[in-house]
């Protein structure tokens, strides 16, 4: 048990840092502008992240598995650790970073080390989605902004009542955003462990069936929740007051749009529905919630006439698509070498 926990610790650490950073994308403005109390936001966020991870986490995780199926716990430990360290290091040097990009880079590093071919189709799908997701998020927020504006201009709702509705709206999109984040990003945290999962399936009172992967996702979900409770308040205050300067209503638009993007790239149900109706479906790929929210904010800026678009930030994000996976891949490759040759463990 101790051995399992030790190997899972890197994934759990990655989960913790995901919770600490990404919860702010969902509840940052709501908490930063004091529309919602942090404790309420953290509780909603944690519950829905865990639900999303356990119920809908499998789709995006499968795509990562196709990119490279890490069969040994030792290898999975190093892959997750390399991603986590890359995220930590890049955050410290102030570069925008996404766990999705870090984990993909780390898996590719593992592929190189173990001479496994990297699934080119999966890689193209994943990289294409990274570029596409902020653009899609911008399109959603652009449209949603006009709908919300149209509604507010015609509804003649009193400022105080609108305040109440906005709070309810922020809670609803926050819950949806947390669910989508859990569903989409649990793959980053626990995806590499699915092939080597040490757990057996569990039946709870013949009512609930949890597969070994779902148990892993449940654990990962808890790690994310711990990250939310222990560290995200600081990040939320920064996001809510310093970077984006969104009003509570525009925050609603931004969170709804980015959550929808995360959901589209995570929901197997939606994918099956679209396919069964002969419609083009979205690939199930872990995407960056930070980049989705930045895309949404840009969409809002464009809807407002294109003022205040931070092109420098856009450049940094594009740079992140390249630097993060490369850094994680190199780190993963080097660490795997040490794990195999110094600690004599199978990777």
């Amino acid at each position: 048990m101790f051995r399992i926990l030790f190997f899972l610790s890197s994934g759990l650490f990655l989960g913790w840092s995901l919770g600490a950073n990404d919860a702010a994308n969902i509840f940052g403005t709501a908490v930063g502008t004091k529309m919602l109390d942090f404790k309420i936001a953290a509780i909603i966020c944690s519950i829905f992240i865990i639900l999303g991870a356990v119920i809908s986490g499998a789709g995006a995780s499968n795509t990562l598995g196709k990119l490279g199926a890490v069969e040994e716990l030792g290898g999975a430990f190093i892959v997750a650790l390399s991603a986590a360290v890359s995220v930590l290091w890049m955050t410290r040097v102030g570069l925008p970073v996404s766990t999705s990009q870090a984990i993909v880079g780390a898996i590719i590093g593992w592929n190189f080390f173990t001479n496994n071919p990297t699934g080119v189709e999966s890689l193209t799908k994943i990289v294409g989605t990274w570029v596409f997701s902020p653009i899609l998020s911008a399109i959603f927020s652009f449209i949603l902004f006009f709908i919300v504006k149209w509604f507010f201009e015609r509804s003649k709702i009193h400022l105080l009542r609108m305040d109440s509705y906005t709070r309810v709206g922020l809670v609803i999109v926050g819950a949806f955003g947390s669910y989508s984040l859990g569903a989409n990003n649990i793959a980053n945290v626990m995806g590499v462990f699915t092939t080597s999962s040490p757990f057996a399936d569990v039946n709870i009172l013949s009512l609930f069936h949890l597969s070994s992967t779902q148990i892993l996702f449940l654990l990962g979900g808890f790690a994310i929740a711990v990250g939310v409770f222990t560290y995200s308040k600081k990040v939320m205050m920064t996001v809510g007051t310093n970077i984006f300067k969104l009003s509570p209503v525009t925050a609603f638009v931004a969170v709804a749009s980015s959550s929808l993007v995360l959901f589209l790239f995570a929901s197997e149900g939606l994918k099956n529905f679209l396919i069964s109706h002969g419609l083009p479906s979205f690939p199930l790929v872990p995407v960056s919630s930070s980049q989705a929210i930045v895309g949404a904010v840009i969409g809002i800026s464009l809807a407002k006439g294109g003022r205040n678009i931070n092109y420098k930030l856009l450049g940094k994000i594009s740079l992140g698509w390249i630097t993060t996976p490369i850094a994680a891949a190199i780190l993963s490759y080097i660490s795997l070498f040490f794990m195999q040759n110094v600690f004599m463990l199978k990777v």
Partner: protein
Amino acid sequence: MAKLFMNRTKQLEEEISEYLDLVSRSGLIFYEAIKSYILDDKDRFNEKFVTITEMESEADEKRRSIKHKLYTYMLIPESRGDVLGLLENMDGIVDCCEKTVERFSIECPEIPEFAQQQFLNLAKFSRKAVEEVVKASRSFFKEINLVEDFINKVHFYEHEADDVEEKLKRTVFQSDIKKFSRKVHLRYFAEKISTISDEAEEVAERLSVYAIKREI
């Protein structure tokens, strides 16, 4: 919980509306008081003076209650400062109306017949500026796109009041009133009445900024 929250909101909405009613009525009472004074209806003037003094205290109390509730219930964190700023500035209008009537009551200026209509016109434009700024404030809470229309009207009436004030002062100083002190006294009252429209314009200026901030 949600119901309790909505009840609080509704209660506060009503209080804000009542506060704006008080501001609007103080403008009307002020005008009626000046009219009664000029028409030499002492009893009616005194009655209006008592009314406006009570209204001023009531408005103060209501404003404090709204402020207390906005902070206790943690409502509109984003616009709370603006709303309180707005209400405090509106309070300046009520104060100004009350103080002007009080000065009439204490100093009893002698209004010559040739200046009576101009004094009435000046009071009328100040009253209208107050009415329009109250409408602008109501729109700020409910129909943000109408705020600018009402603000334009406030500017218009303030400008008219300035015009009348200047003409009134010229008439007074070019008149055959012998005592310079009386001329200065009349000028003081012309300026005092005109200050009400100035106060209304100041609120309007702030309101136009608040309205821009409220746009989503």
